[in-house]
């Protein structure tokens, strides 16, 4: 069977006809396989949902108990037979519970990696390279200008600023699922042990991370805290809140934003960011190209992001590559958080 007959882009998402399911469907379908909990990938209203326990929990937190007719949890490394295909989940290193889905049919293996990163992250299981025939890769940061570097260095920058401006509050815009918890964990790893404040919109998900055994230290709700008491503190907030009237409760806030886009000055300036922190949950250019090589796949399908450059690069490496026209996936690094767009995906 040809790979494109195993997995086919459709308006509802990536369809697996021989298996009778869709991967990360953007419209309600009978059977959905979900890679991770971000709202543009994990939507409500499907019949049956197969995903990791964490992803299912996150969907339950966001959409309520009845987000799907039935659910099935699957562990990393576990294999499931669906129709004529076998699927197996592997860690994607993107956020807690994120997975790559390996679909095998008649000896051909396609890996749909969802969103992934190969950089270390204390809040989720590390990315695993899965050898395959066809590798479906994201391309959010698919330009050679995107090199995220060491996130710890960015955290040092934040801490140095907090030290230099003890009378100001530091507001860190970070996507509420994944990025925020990673930033907190990085702050703790850097030895910052003061309480970290949270915007109301990220309390629930952050506490869920803690319930899964991820150490985040002392966290406090920012709501109700006096303005003067916020001097010298660090608060995590959804990116859109950092340019909102909400910020007026902070003393002369320094606006930081943790995102891979912060590598590009114009992007940082556009958002009125004063302290850009290059921290991303997506693979950077080096990560994308290294992963593609490591999978040994002869054919690469490129989706959501800068497809052109990555397809071009694959071809210069003698790999067969094409953009996969899937719509409906945002990029949580861009600053539009699900808190504001609730289930409609971010801006592209």
């Amino acid at each position, binding site marked *: 069977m040809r790979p494109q007959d195993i997995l086919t882009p459709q308006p509802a998402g990536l369809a697996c006809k021989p298996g009778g399911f869709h991967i990360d469907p953007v419209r309600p379908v009978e059977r959905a396989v979900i890679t991770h909990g971000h709202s543009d990938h994990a939507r409500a209203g499907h019949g049956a949902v197969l995903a990791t326990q964490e992803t299912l929990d996150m969907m339950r937190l966001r959409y309520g108990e009845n987000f799907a007719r039935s659910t099935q949890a699957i562990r990393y490394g576990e294999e499931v037979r669906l129709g004529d295909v076998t699927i197996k989940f592997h860690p994607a290193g993107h956020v807690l519970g994120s997975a790559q889905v390996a679909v095998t049919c008649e000896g051909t293996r396609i890996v749909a990696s969802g969103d992934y990163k190969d950089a270390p992250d204390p809040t989720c299981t590390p990315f695993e390279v899965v050898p395959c025939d066809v590798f479906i890769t994201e391309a959010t940061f698919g330009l050679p*200008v995107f090199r995220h570097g060491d996130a710890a260095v960015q955290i040092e920058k934040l801490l140095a600023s907090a030290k230099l401006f003890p009378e100001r509050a530091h507001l860190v815009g970070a996507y509420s699922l994944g990025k925020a918890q990673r930033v907190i964990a990085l702050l703790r790893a850097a030895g910052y042990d003061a309480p970290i404040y949270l915007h109301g919109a990220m309390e629930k998900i952050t506490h869920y991370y803690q319930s899964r055994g991820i150490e985040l230290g002392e966290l406090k709700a920012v709501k109700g805290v006096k303005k003067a008491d916020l001097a010298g503190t660090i608060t995590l907030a959804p990116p859109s809140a950092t340019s909102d009237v909400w910020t007026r409760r902070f003393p002369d806030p320094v606006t930081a934003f943790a995102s891979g886009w912060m590598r*590009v000055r114009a992007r940082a300036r556009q958002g009125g960011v004063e302290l850009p922190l290059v921290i991303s949950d997506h693979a950077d250019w080096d990560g994308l190209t290294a992963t593609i090589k490591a999978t040994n796949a002869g054919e690469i399908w490129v989706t959501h992001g800068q497809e052109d450059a990555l397809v071009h690069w694959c071809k210069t490496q003698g790999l067969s590559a094409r953009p996969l026209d899937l719509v409906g996936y945002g990029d949580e690094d861009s600053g539009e958080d699900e808190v504001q767009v609730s289930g409609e995906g971010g801006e592209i």
Partner: protein
Amino acid sequence: MNRFAELLDRLAYEPGRNNKLRLITSYFRTVEDPDRGYALAALTGALSFKHAKPGLIRDLIAERTDPTLFALSYDYVGDLSETVALMWPKQSHDRLHNNPPPPTLTEVVTTLRTLGKTEIPRQLSRWLDDLDETGRWALLKLVTGAMRIGISARLAKTAAAALGDKDAHDVELIWPGLTPPYLDLFAWLEGRGEKPVNRDPAPFRPVMLAHAIEDADFANLNPADYIAEWKWDGIRVQAVSGRDPQGALVTRLYSRSGEDITKSFPDLLPSLHLPGAIDGELLVVREGRVQSFNVLQQRLNRKAVSPKLIREYPAHLRAYDLLGDDEMDLRELSFAERRKRLAAFVQRLDDSRIDLSPAIAFDSWELLAAARRDPASVGAGEDSEAVEGVMLKRRDALYLPGRPKGQWWKWKRDPHVIDAVLMYAQRGHGKRSSYYSDYTFGVWTGAEDDAQLVPVGKAYFGFTDEELMQIDRFVRRNTTEKFGPVRQVVHEPDQGLVIEVAFEGLQRSTRHKSGVAMRFPRISRLRWDKPPREADRLETLERLLKSPTTSELTESG
């Protein structure tokens, strides 16, 4: 270099002046000599080496990257230095160790000073290999001479002065005698050395500035205490002549911020043939008539000054004040006394290019108001077009650097105003980052029945906090399109917001689609009462450009 790069990076995003100062001072405190001295030189524009051309940078990156990937990246990033800094693929060296330390700022600056042109590309590549993204960005900005991070030399000096709890004026006073990397300056600021002595025979003296006068101020002022003179619309300069140890006369011209602009006005130098320091206004005078600021503009920011330029735009100095007469410092004398000496000094100079700024006779504020309204009838004569307003100076005022209270006042003529339509709004910075506070406005052009709005300027102040909230609300409710941080606001003949924009002057501009550029535009009133169709037309502005006197519009507006 990395520390300096971090500083530049942080400064580039920081909107607040005091926060910028904190960042720079903290850098000076933690970085050692001579690196911090070269950083101070870089921030004050005191470094001199041949700048690398963008073409050279392009060649470097072309050698190392795939052209398609570079084109896509450049297209995305939009800035050459930044694109190169970000996508530069490091190459390991054939050196003994794999990770050579990144170059220091000192190494970069001193190497660039001596390096031959042909050696630059190889050296640059090596440095680019050794630095990280931010370091590469700062290096490329430095070597192409395009720092543009919104730091004035004055701010950098203020930050250095803060290191020793000194005032920026203290640094300004000795600055002309100092050279990078300013070891003696930092030693003094840190209490480790003597105050450097300014041995410059023609030093800059920090200037004294005036406050804008408000109607309410007059009640407390006595006309008899003041001398009034015209406020000329040129550029404020300080012309200093002094003798070096060999007895030769050294002459320099400084801008009000202390920048040496001597090279731009060679035609004025021979006229300054006596040792002394004049505070005055640089003007262009043709056949005895002072020309408008637009004409003077032709002489500003020129790299080369051609004989033709000098012939057509002859420089002239109108003297306001005398700060030094030969060896004598006059700044501790009263203004009345200094003015007396100035008159004598100008007479001794006896040169047609230098004259005394005439005083305006008045004994009541009403008389002065009349003079301000109609300078032509009260002595300004044909030069009245170049009068920007009236200056009031206390007779007993010492020459105090900065903007001391109650000493000097400026009383500008009414600014020009037009009614324009709000077209785009952008979020502000810092405290204003949650408000749309930067406004692009336009006026009508084209046939009456098919008029289009063309942007003529941008304003981000002039409104009260309450007006800001009102505009912010209007912008949010009437957005028709979003481009990043910019919102397009409805601007139809019958729908939109008319704002009254005040501005100081107008000049032709090829950079603006409308062909005109405003000086110092700000919002003077919100015209909620006016439909956009009644806003001004571009022709009104064009007439203003042509008309010999720009006061016409003021009266009709």
